[in-house]
């Protein structure tokens, strides 16, 4: 499938792309655009104004994906807290990792293009998923 989003990805789009590849579409093709008018007809837009898979009612796009695709995995909701706070910093959740993740991704986006950014952040989110999964299973922060 083809997926379209805005150029110059940051945390929310990087996390959504990871979610798509890992849980929704094993062979996604991502198209990066500057304006909603450039979204190809056969592509599903996300994290763009006017798109269904976007910010809604205070949710960031990652949270919208979890709701729309009914991904009830509690580990994903743990990741959603980090993504939400790194993206919006509105203190809806307590996610102390968020400011760090925000800085790391912003820095990375300064030295890598979007394709490379998604390739590099994929394993980062894999790791975050594993960490949060172990924390949920054991009830404490894994060492």
């Amino acid at each position, binding site marked *: 499938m083809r997926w379209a989003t805005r150029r110059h990805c940051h945390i929310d789009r990087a996390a959504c792309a990871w979610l798509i590849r890992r849980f929704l579409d094993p062979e996604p093709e991502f198209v990066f655009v500057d304006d909603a008018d450039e979204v190809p007809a056969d592509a599903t837009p996300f994290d763009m*104004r006017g798109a269904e898979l976007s910010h809604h*009612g*205070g949710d960031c796009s990652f949270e919208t994906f979890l709701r729309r695709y009914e991904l009830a995995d509690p580990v994903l909701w743990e990741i959603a807290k980090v993504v939400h706070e790194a993206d919006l*910093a509105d203190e809806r959740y307590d996610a102390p990792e968020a400011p760090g993740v925000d800085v790391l991704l912003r820095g990375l986006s300064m030295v890598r293009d979007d394709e490379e950014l998604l390739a590099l952040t994929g394993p980062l989110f894999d790791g975050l998923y594993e960490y949060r999964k172990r924390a949920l299973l054991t009830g404490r922060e894994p060492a």
Partner: protein
Amino acid sequence: MRTLWVLLAYRLPREPSTPRSALWRKLRRLGAGQVGDGLAALPLDARNREKLEWLAEEVVEAGGEASIWLGELASAAQERELASRMAQLVAADYRTLIADAKAALEERGGQRRRTLGRLRRELRRIRARDYFPPPERELAQQELEGLAEVVEEPVA
């Protein structure tokens, strides 16, 4: 050099008032300057543009109208006036923080350390919306450094 701005032009129904006050709080947290009734401005960068675009979306979802504009003020004097109004808002926030930090000097050890943590987070939040730093910014920084010096290390 003239500042480039991203502007949110919006119109929301009078009632219900919740979306209006929520929007106002969010604009305030971003440090946006109110240019007129239903027009808010931030210095243009990718992050601010995105933030205002999401707010525009929320306005539309709440039954209002919103558009995003990019622009610059034709008059340098009016730009200075807008920047100075925005600086006065954050200056007031810095002054509150300075007063809190001074008051914390009288607190007991554990309480004082918690206050320091809270004020450091607050300083970060204010700095994130401070585009035209007033002198109070430096003073707030110094006041917190002074407080940190009298906060003893936590007992492990």
